[in-house]
């Protein structure tokens, strides 16, 4: 797969769906209208724990416009959802309340307002229990069990080498405990679904979602229908970042059950408060680290004990546990590593996937340790990282030897070249404290330890030479439709404007697993590459006959088949495709890309896990106002090895967007609980970064080609979250001389620490 002579891949192009998005013509789920449509609103528990005694819908049913009130017994199937085992979340709870957002009943009415009023009128009698609210309370041996199996959701170890021996040989050891807080996705479009009964025994569910096949499976199961009777169509999706899996499944099932029961279209559209309380968050974490090195900075051993507060349901906790575990040692060549990671249940909003998936939490802690070690050693922090940085041919913490595409040192060197002198206070400038922080990271690409990773893509060329690409992975704004179009364009010699990549419709594309793990470009892109290649073979075969030459003399470019030895001799792809059709050459292929399976020991997590890693280095310069604690970010460099940029404009967008989410996590955002109930479920009290908080992020693209990705590409969606959060913490520590061990480090935290000094 040559990277030379690329015509489309590697060029920054505008999103293929830009025009409909800037004109307001793109239809998000809430923009859809169906005749006779009804609206569903859930009655939620409102308290974090208790035994449900009764649910009384008599008053609600009598209110104007109300058509039905559904409870658990109205669900034909098992009334269970979840991302992976243990599937432990009821669609509607009937026995136990495990968090405040628990849905107990669904009111269906002629308008959203009527449904909302009636939901408030559903009387629920709950015998409250003392909620279990933190990790320690959950782990107490005599603690009430939130689920029958106890309060440990998942617990795993990673063991490489002999960590005790490593620490015994170490000359310098640093040790600390770090914490991170719950973070909300805060996509601008709240979760919305619309279920439309077909009258033919089928049901179609339009959804703002991330993984349509996952939703289809759960809807079919809870309706007791074959999956082939359920069609899920992803509408334009207003952001997801990991957040529209569980919740889209929950409301997708609810709307579908109501629609089938009433034989009417039913829409459920969350309000912002429900979106925050009733859908997953990023796990809060408590992480204890120990790092030991020689006096020259060679790291010999790392030990991490990680606890994740996963809230009421398992959701993605098992996989987040594994991802945190695998990434805890950082992008370094360390012979001895021991990591334990445990996710627990508590009576709070459940936690699951959120851009970064456990990596931002451990990277913040791990990179804080690196700076603490650098300080002990009196060494330049970037140099310490470079001296220990993973290189091709060395083994990760899982013992996986990466032979290629290990661009960490290149990202460090690019940062070192660009960093220049750190800003310092002028002699008369007493108000500002200046500091510089850096951080390195790695982030596994593909499902890896989470299971098989297969994407099916179809490529179809019409007689007019235009191309339809079908991939079972969703574009939630990140730009994967554009990337897939570019890859197909590159292979087929068709211009991007003649390529269409529709949203996922489960009737028309192959189940390609969840759209997660920064895998779309790498694994999905490879499937498109292969399918396009198969169709290209038909076009070339036809062109050979028409141009009367050998196969090697035909090139497809700019919607033409051209003879390489005589560029004058060319035929439009429309003519070639039409001729191919009438000759009977296949013009559509469904092809699969399968990432090499992860192979590892489940007790020690030693083995080959991810097909590639994204490596990155971030540098941040800040100044802090002594009087107010306000932090100004003066500089933010973000270098990532992404193998090959398919769309550099899109890459910058991913880096800048992820960076601000990392900055929010590190500085601004914290879900506040009191007695298990979220206190800031709105955008006035929960501080989503505004345009005034934006970062001066400069994206530095490093391309160390990845043999497992199309044209050498690797994913970039998640990694900058971790790098930004960790670099911010280190920059604030450098400026203030105070090591903050808890994220977010807010203005008031900084001010309090400075006053204490």
């Amino acid at each position, binding site marked *: 797969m040559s990277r030379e002579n690329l015509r489309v891949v590697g060029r*920054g192009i*505008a*999103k293929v*769906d*830009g*025009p*409909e*998005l*800037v*004109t*307001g*013509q*793109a*239809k*998000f789920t*809430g*923009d859809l*209208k169906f005749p006779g449509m009804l609206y569903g609103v859930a009655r939620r528990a409102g308290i974090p724990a208790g035994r449900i005694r009764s649910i009384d819908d008599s008053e609600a049913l009598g209110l104007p416009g109300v058509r039905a009130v559904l409870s658990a017994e109205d669900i034909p199937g098992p009334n269970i959802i979840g991302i992976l085992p243990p599937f432990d979340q009821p669609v509607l709870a009937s026995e136990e309340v495990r968090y405040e957002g628990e849905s107990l009943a669904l009111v269906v009415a002629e308008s959203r307002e009527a449904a909302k009023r009636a939901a408030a009128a559903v009387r629920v009698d709950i015998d409250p229990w003392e909620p279990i609210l933190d990790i320690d309370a959950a782990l107490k041996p005599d603690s009430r069990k939130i689920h029958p199996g106890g309060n440990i959701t998942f617990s795993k170890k990673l063991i490489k080498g002999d960590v005790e021996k490593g620490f015994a040989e170490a000359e310098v050891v640093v040790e600390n405990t770090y914490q991170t807080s719950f973070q909300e*996705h*805060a*996509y*601008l*479009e*709240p979760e919305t679904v619309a279920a439309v009964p077909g009258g033919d025994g089928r049901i179609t569910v339009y959804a703002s979602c991330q993984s349509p096949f996952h939703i289809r499976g759960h809807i079919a199961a809870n309706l007791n229908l074959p999956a082939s009777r359920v069609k899920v169509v992803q509408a*334009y*999706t*207003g*952001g997801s*970042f990991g957040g529209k899996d569980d919740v889209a499944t929950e409301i997708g099932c609810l709307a579908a059950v109501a629609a089938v029961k009433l034989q009417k279209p039913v829409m459920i559209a969350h*309000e*912002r408060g429900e979106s925050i309380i009733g859908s997953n968050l990023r796990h809060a974490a408590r992480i204890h680290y120990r790092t030991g090195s020689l006096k020259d900075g060679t790291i010999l051993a790392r030990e991490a004990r990680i606890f994740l507060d996963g809230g009421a349901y398992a959701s993605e906790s098992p996989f987040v546990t594994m991802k945190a575990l695998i990434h805890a040692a950082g992008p370094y060549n360390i012979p001895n590593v021991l990591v334990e990671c445990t996710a627990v249940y508590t009576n709070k909003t459940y936690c699951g996937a959120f851009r970064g998936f456990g990596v931002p939490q451990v990277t913040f802690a791990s990179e804080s340790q690196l700076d603490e070690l650098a300080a002990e050693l009196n060494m330049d922090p970037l140099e310490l990282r470079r001296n220990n940085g993973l290189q091709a041919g060395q083994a990760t913490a899982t013992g996986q030897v990466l032979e290629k595409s290990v661009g960490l040192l290149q990202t460090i060197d690019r940062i070192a070249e660009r960093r220049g002198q750190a800003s310092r206070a002028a002699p008369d400038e007493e108000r500002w404290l200046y500091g510089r922080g850096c951080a390195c990271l790695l982030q596994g690409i593909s499902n890896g330890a989470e299971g098989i990773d297969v994407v099916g893509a179809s490529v179809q060329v019409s007689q007019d030479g235009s191309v339809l690409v079908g991939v079972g992975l969703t574009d*939630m*704004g*990140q*730009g994967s439709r554009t990337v897939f179009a570019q890859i197909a364009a590159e292979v087929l010699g068709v211009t991007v404007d003649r390529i269409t990549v529709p949203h996922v419709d489960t009737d028309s594309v192959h189940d390609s697993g969840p759209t997660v793990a920064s895998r779309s470009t790498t694994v999905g892109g490879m499937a498109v590459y292969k399918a396009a290649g198969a169709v290209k073979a038909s076009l070339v075969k036809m062109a050979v006959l028409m141009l009367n030459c050998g196969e090697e003399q035909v090139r497809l470019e700019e919607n033409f088949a051209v003879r390489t030895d005589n560029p004058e001799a060319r035929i439009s792809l429309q003519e070639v495709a039409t001729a191919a059709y009438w000759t009977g050459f296949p013009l559509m292929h469904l092809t699969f890309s399968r990432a090499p399976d992860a192979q590892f020991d489940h007790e020690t997590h030693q083995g080959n896990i991810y097909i590639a890693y994204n490596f990155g280095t971030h540098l941040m310069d800040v100044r802090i106002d002594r009087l107010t604690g306000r932090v100004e970010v003066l500089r933010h460099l973000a270098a990532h090895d992404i193998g090959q940029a398919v769309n550099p*404009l*899109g890459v*910058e*967008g991913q880096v*800048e*967007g*992820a*960076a*601000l*989410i990392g900055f929010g996590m590190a500085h601004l955002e914290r879900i506040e609980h009191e007695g298990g109930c979220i206190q800031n479920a*709105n*955008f*006035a009290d929960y501080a*989503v*970064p*505004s*345009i*005034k908080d*934006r*970062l*001066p*992020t400069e994206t530095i693209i490093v391309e160390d080609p990845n043999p497992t990705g199309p044209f050498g590409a690797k994913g970039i969606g998640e990694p900058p979250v971790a790098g930004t959060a960790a670099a911010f913490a280190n920059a604030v520590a450098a400026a203030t001389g105070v090591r903050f061990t808890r994220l977010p480090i807010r203005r008031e935290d900084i001010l309090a620490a400075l006053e204490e000094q």
Partner: protein
Amino acid sequence: MLLEFELNGKQTRVEVEPTLRALDLLREVLGLTGTKEGCGRGECGACTILVDGEPVNSCLLYAAKLQGRKITTIEGLTAEDGAKELHPLQEAFISEGAVQCGFCTPGMILSAKSLLDRNPEPDVQAIEEALSGNLCRCTGYGKIVKAVQKAAAGGGPGAGGSARSGGSG
């Protein structure tokens, strides 16, 4: 009550409940779904429309308040005759990569239009001020600032004041 107002350059008469939100009038009654609801509390800006050229959160506005006013929604930025020409801001948002999921985009573009109509050559601080009520979770905002600067520079003075929309031209 009977409402009469100018909507995207066209006189509009519609009978509404006085307690209806302007957002619901536009989306549910008039079918202009380009205006989005992100929070329903005036905290995110996704529902921004222009009322006599000023950006307003339509989720906080009673429909009755539109009486006699000139209203511009995102649908009013492109030519009404079905031509494909985009407003310079729309072009710039696409070419600069200032759109990802696009849910905040209509409101963001309208706030930017109001700014450029008042101040054709805004500095960065003016852009920040004008867009500080519009949240975006995807882009990190850098490319949005660039897009507004590009639209301002590209069209020269008055670039944002496309008379086509009739909203505030």
